[in-house]
């Protein structure tokens, strides 16, 4: 009950990490094998060594992941404020440092 409010509940799941690092495509996706979904404010940690895929290759990795569930307060907060991070989707907004 307390964890539901303040968060910290954790779930371990198997996941598949798919990487395409080719000329045609650069993508990286994490899929939870049992269909578990993440909610606003949750934190996901994929275990294991850092993933590297040489240029020109596509690879899949089977890994374990821990989902740390956000508490009700954090979930509400993320829902209320997340929208304002939309600027990240614009090409000109990413680097903040003045060059």
């Amino acid at each position, binding site marked *: 009950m307390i964890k539901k409010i303040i968060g910290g509940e954790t779930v371990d799941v198997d996941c598949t990490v798919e990487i395409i690092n080719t000329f045609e495509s650069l993508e990286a996706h994490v899929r939870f094998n049992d269909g578990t979904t993440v909610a*606003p*404010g949750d934190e996901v940690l994929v*275990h294991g060594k850092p993933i590297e895929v040489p240029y020109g290759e596509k690879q899949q990795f089977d890994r374990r992941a821990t989902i740390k569930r956000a508490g009700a307060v954090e979930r509400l907060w993320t829902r209320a404020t997340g*929208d304002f991070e939309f600027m990240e*989707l614009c090409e000109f907004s990413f680097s903040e440092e003045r060059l």
Partner: protein
Amino acid sequence: MNAHSKVPANGKPIHVEDQNETTKMAHETTLLDPRFYTTDFDKLDKTDVSSVRAEWDVLIEQMKSDPNKGHFKRTEAWDDIDLESLPEGLRKELVDFLVSSLTAEFSGCVLYKEMKRRGSNPDIKELFSYMSRDEARHAGFINDSLKDFGIGVNLGFLTKAKKYTYFRPKFIFYATYLSEKIGYARYITIFRHFEKHPEKRFHPIFKWFQEWCNDEFSHGEAFSLLMRSDPKLLSGHNKLWIKFFLCAVYATMFVRDHARPEFHKAMGIGIEDYDMRVFRITNEITKQCFPLLLDIENPKFLKRLQRMNRLAIAMGKADNQGGIMGRIKKVGIGAAVAANFAGLYFMPTIKNEIPETSRLVPTW
């Protein structure tokens, strides 16, 4: 390992690190640090495009045909340039431009793929699969150009703890619509400029911008239809949100572009002139769905943006100064930014009658 420079992405740093100083090529890695998003997937699934079905089907058919499939290839038009000969400032800003573009395309791809994967509405799934495909392709193409600079992407973020943030579906529509359309306007303006001044073209990637930005254009068309399918999104109190997004996106672009003086100087284009051209095109395009337009020709509009840029520079200085004085200054400047933004926000806008049909062709 020497950290050469830190360029924050999404508010977080991208570390450009030297991995092996004796190796000339691919000796730096750019640690991508994209954000991860989630949304109200149930609500997204309830999207009903039946009121715009005729236009929707035409657009989806066009995306399915994948007109740009063969475009992103290095042909003989890719004239190899001597990157070492670029002045240091320009080289740095060009790399920053490529890295920010790459991160934006990459984040778009992850977001769109997630929407495709978690949705069950067939229209939504199909649309987002095509858009994700395009963004991944763009990211791959930029990634390849970065290799010429000896920079490769580092996927280290995958095994680090990631927080998922949240966008309401309608905010995704407003924000990505604008980002796709303004992206189109930016790329086509650069492309047209270099068409007139080919001697200024300092990197071959700009030659690819024309077809490239047609992808951005058609993604924007899709979001226009999604918004138009639910007229509530374009009326009532949502008009206030649209105005907010317009102000925030235009002001951010203006400030960010001013942080790349060498880039624009090498292009032979004034930053203000370039930005105003982009705003004019974007305003013209957004008439297809937004009920209001910012009055960009009102001299006060440019004054507000110029002030925003001065404040951003002052904020950067206060940040570097650090300490208590730096922090006090930052609070003051933050208040001035908020007041200036409010001034921009409350400027009268131009009312727009949304036309019968949404469809536009990229003729700029």
